[in-house]
Every structure is written in C-alpha cells, then in structure tokens.
C-alpha cells in the first residue's frame, strides 16, 4: 500500500475573483466509501477535478494513491464527472471498449468483461445499439459503467445519483458497496444527505470552499447529536421535566421529545419513566446528517 487513496493538503483554487476552494485539507483512507457533502457551489466538483489533474490548484498539494496528482497514473482511477458525456453516435459495446482501452485494459479482457457488466445493470439487450437510442436513465447507467469498466482501485463519482430513479439508484448503490467489499475506494459527492447517510463510512462537509467538518460518520454523528429521546408515553408526564437528567421536554402530538442533559444516560431516563407511566415506544434519536448539515451551514453563514 502506498499511502492514502487521496490526500489533500492546504489546497486553494480561485477562478478570477471567485475563491472556489480555500485551504482545504482532507485524508481519504483506502477501502472506504467517502462522501463529499455540501450545497451546490461548495467546491466539491472543483476539488474532485483537481484530484484528477483536470484543473490545477493555485496552491497546496494533492496526492492520489501515494503519487502527486500531476503524475499519477489515470488508469488506476475511475472518474465520473458531474457533466455527463458520451459519444452519442457510438454503439454501446464500442463505447465501453474505447473507454476501457483508454484505461489500458486489453481488448480480450474487455470482450469478456463488457457483457458481464452490461448484464449487471440490465443493459445486455442494448450492447449493439447506439448511445443516443438509450433512455436517460440507461445513459446514466452506461456512464457509470464507463467509469468502472477498468475495475479501478479508486473511483471518484461526482453526483452519481442525480437524475436516477429509485431502481437504478439501487443498482448503482449495490455496485458501490461491492467495490468497497473488494477493498476499493469510492469517493462520491452529493448534496443528497440521505444517500450519504446510507452509504458512507466517512464524510467531508464543505461549504463555500471551506471544510466544515470531516471524519467517520459515527463520530460526526456523536459529535453533533444532542442526546434526545423520542417516546410515546401514556399517563401524566408532567413529572418528566423535573427529572435530574432532563434538559427540556417538547410535546409533538402523541409523541414526546425529551432532550437530555450532557452526560446523562438514556437508560436511567427509561427506568424513571417505566416506574411512573406506560412506555409504548422509546427511541434514542440520532441527528440526521441533514440536520447536522443544515445547522452547521447556518452557523457558518451567521
């Protein structure tokens, strides 16, 4: 193993007066699914393009699989740009062969690999059709295949889920999960937090070109979650507010949200509740990435 999958060190990039990325640093370890999160225009695409040496940073350093981004071998990396593009007049099989060859895969291996890959995403019947005959969703899947046809060690997907229906989304997700199982690294950018939540091991949150936070998803959650319990209780619950471990109580119809004091144990709360009222449901609430994201972005703006 030669270093992290991606190492970004104090990288800045401006386009004229616009500072797209400001002194951004991040380490993306191998063998994980890593999410680049942030609202539109946060600098996600710029950062990924710099990792691919499609544009160059004004300052700072990027290494990919242990090599500087300007000299790395593109054949080990798969990259799906945000702006999708295929040769519309080419046939599906020829297109995949061409892009596979450009990644240095030999023709014989491609001849075996392409049917298998097409089958995996349900495009077998389209191998000899022109790209322009495919529907939008099919073209999206084909674009994904173009990216991973060489079985890259490290794959960068810029907004891989935009424009996909739930079924196709599931197909792509499964392949991404399998790639992780095989020990490959996948980075993807998105502004859809639910997808990140379901897939990522670690995340990087950027806003206006600056890092807001990064790290393993569990840690991020733990760090930014105010311990809250959501319970459905029967009986008089006015005593709850007086309990020592409780910060405050919010009624939400039949449900009650109980915000705990820092360091308090939710199990103690449960015990206290069971003594006095019927507990129909009791759930420790974890802040969703969406909530963390929105609150941090707001904080950052304010």
């Amino acid at each position: 193993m030669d270093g992290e999958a991606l190492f970004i060190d104090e990288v800045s990039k401006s386009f004229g007066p616009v500072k797209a990325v400001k002194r951004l640093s991040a380490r993306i370890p191998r063998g994980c699914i890593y999410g680049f999160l942030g609202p539109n225009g946060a600098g996600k695409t710029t950062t990924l393009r710099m990792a691919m040496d499609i544009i160059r940073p004004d300052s700072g350093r990027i290494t990919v699989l242990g090599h500087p981004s300007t000299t790395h071998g593109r054949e080990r990396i798969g990259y799906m740009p945000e702006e999708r593009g295929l040769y519309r007049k080419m046939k599906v099989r020829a297109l995949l062969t061409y892009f596979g060859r450009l990644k240095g895969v030999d023709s014989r291996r491609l001849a075996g690999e392409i049917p298998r890959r097409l089958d995996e995403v349900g495009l077998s019947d389209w191998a000899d059709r022109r790209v322009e005959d495919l529907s939008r969703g099919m073209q999206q899947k084909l674009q994904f295949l173009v990216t991973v046809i060489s079985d890259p060690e490290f794959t960068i997907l810029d907004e891989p889920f935009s424009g996909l229906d739930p079924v196709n989304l599931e197909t792509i997700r499964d392949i991404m999960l399998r790639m992780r199982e095989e020990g490959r690294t996948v980075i993807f950018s998105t502004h859809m937090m639910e997808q990140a939540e379901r897939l990522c091991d670690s995340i990087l949150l950027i806003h206006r070109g600056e890092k807001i936070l990064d790290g393993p998803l569990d840690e991020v959650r733990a760090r930014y979650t105010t311990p809250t319990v959501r319970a459905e209780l029967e009986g008089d619950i006015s005593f709850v507010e007086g309990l020592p471990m409780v910060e405050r109580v919010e009624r939400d119809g039949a449900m009650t949200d109980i915000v705990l004091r820092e360091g308090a144990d939710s199990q103690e709360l449960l015990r206290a509740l069971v003594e006095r009222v019927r507990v129909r449901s009791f759930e420790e609430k974890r802040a969703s990435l969406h909530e963390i994201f929105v609150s941090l972005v707001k904080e950052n703006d304010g």
Partner: protein
Amino acid sequence: MGRILTIALREYAEMVKTKTFILSLLATPLLIVGIGWIGTRIQHSVEKGSRPPERVLVVDLEGDLLSGLREKVESHNRRTPGRRIGLETLAATDLDQEQAASEVSRRVRERQVGVGLVIPKDAIDGKQAIRYYGRGDAFQELDLFQALRGLVNDALIDVRCERLNMSRDLIDEIRRRADFDRIDVTAGAKQSEGKMVMSMMVPFFFMFLLFMGMVGINQHMLTSVIEEKNSRVVEVLLASVSPFQLMAGKIAGLSAVGLTVTSIWGVAALGSLAGFGLGDVIAPAALVYFLAYYVLGSVFYSAVYAAVGAACNTLKEAQPLIMPVTMVLVIPMAGWVFFAQNPTGPWSVALSLIPPFSPLVMIVRLSVQPSVPFYQVFASILILAASVAGAMWVSARVFRVGILLYGKPPTPREMLRWIRES
C-alpha cells in the same frame, strides 16, 4: 503513446465512416472531371447549336467595306453555325456620321437590333476608330465583339490590298507564324505542348494538395473538438488521458485521414498522368519531400485548429479566430506563378524557409527546380519541425484551459495569458 494511438484510431475510424467523408473523397475529383466535361459539352452545344443569328446593324460610311464584310460574315456563319451573325443595314445612304451614330444607337437602345457598327468615312486610310454600339452587358457580347472586330479587320485588309494592287495571299504568307517545338534538354526528347502545360501545372497541383491537407481536412478538427466539448465527453476523456494526449491523438488521427485522402487523390492523379504517357513530369524526389512537408504542415495547422476549437463553443465563434490563420496561406497560393518563375529569387528562398509558408513555397520550388540546394531544404524542414513542436506546446496550453471553459469565447489576449500561466 498507447493512449494517443487509441484516440487516433477512433478519430480516424469515425471520420472515415461518415458519409460526408466518402462523398468529399469521391466528389472532389469527380467534380473536377465533371466541371471539365460539362464545360466542353457547353462549348460543343454552342458551336453546334441553332441560336437565332445575332442581329448586327452596320452603317458603312466608307462605302467599300460592306460587301467584303458580307462575304466574311457568310463564311463565319458557315464555320460556326452556333454563333451566326445577321447583318443589316440602313436604307438611307446619305447620312453624316452624327446622324448615323444617333440612329444606330437609338435602334440598339430600343432593341430593334442586338448591336450596331458605324464605319467612318476614312476607315481604310485614316485612323478613326470604328464605333461599336452595345447595351452594357459587355460580358455576354464579348464573343460577338471579338468576332466582329476580326471580320471587319479582315475585310479591311482585303480592301487595302485591292487599292494597293497587292495579293492578299502574299500578305498572308508574309504574316504566317512559325511553329515552336520545345525540347527539354534534361528530358532529351521533344515535348508536346500538352506536356509542357502539364509540367507547369505540377507545382500548382502539389501546392493545392498541401493546402487541402493543411486547411481543408482540419475543418474537421474544429468540428470534432467543439462536438466533444459540447457533448461534455471531454471531461470523461480527461479522466483517462491528459489534455496533451487527447490533442495529440486527435491530431494524429485527422492527419492520417488527410494523408489517406491525399494519397488516393495523388495516386489517381499520377495514374491518369501515366495513362497519358506523362508520368515523368513529376520527379520522384519531389514526392518524398511532398510527404515530409505534408505531414509537418498538416500537424502544424491541426495543432492550431485544435487550440482554437477548444477555446470556442460553436463553429461561428471559431471562424473569426481561424480566418487570419488560414488567410496567410492565400499569399503563397496567389503567388505560385511568381515562385515557379523565380525559384531562386530572394522572396522565394525566404518564404520557403518561413512557416507556415515554407511547405507551400518550397514544394513549388522543388517541383520546378529539382536542384534546390539541399541545405535549404534541410533548413526549411528543420525550421518547420521546430515550429510544429512550438505550435504543439502552445496549443496544448490553450487546449488544456479552453476545453473545460464554457461561455463566451476568449479574446486573443486571454489566450496569451493561458499560454503564459499554465
């Protein structure tokens, strides 16, 4: 290198497969042959045809010329039935010159006749011009004008001979021109006039093929780069290859297409020359040089076109940037006769060393004067090769920045900045 080749092969295959390519490959020679054939057919039908005779009103104030002119016109009509002339004259005979002029011009203006002639009194001895009245469409009347001038002068000489009591046959014999046979001492044999014309056309033919290779084929470079840019496939490609590899692959592919077309045309042209027994008008050494200049010149311009294509989003945006680059090549194209006649003159030598003129000018020099000093050819190729490397270097920089930029096209100043910065 493998990537560049993969890109070149696709570029070549995609280009060669298209209908427009096959059409233009076949159509260009067919068009040239076709235009020639239609030209001769028209000529033929004009000579054979049965147009109504052109009505010409003649007022002969001299008096002695008209009968002779009638005879000449009759034999003219027999010779070229497609261009007959119908002579007419005025009934009134006692007109002075002014009256005749106004009457003739009135009738021409009112379209009673096609054209008019007024032959002044002293036409035979004096120096007064014969007046020809036409209607402004000089181009259409050109044939008629020339025919009438010949016929009237012919008739004039007859009358003069008669008055001086001389034999017309003697005059014709005195004026008979001797034939010229050209013997090329390097070829050792007598050259036909056809062959002489052909060998004079060879430099132009070479130059034209080079020009097509440098400019014609490269229009596709613009289209291809702009298409990839607009279909956003560029960034997908850049995930696998560097901008330089992408550009180099496209240049290699399209240059190969150009070479294919030129070879086919060239072989066809050489073949048909050989068929007419004119195969030796082209020196084999010139072919070798042609190939070298073709490849270098084509790559040079490909690089420039690729950079311009990358900087623009539509062909329309690209045209004003490409225009000056292309127009400079018109200089050697327009001056080829000069270079062919003065292959050792200072202008010819200088321009045959300076790119982008050098391929075009040197090929003309080489094909008219096979003994161009070798050091000059060597220097010319060396300078061109260095310029190709320079053009690739500069273009790669513009290409790298431009290919991912959308929106309004850059000014030349911005492009200079890209070259300096990247």
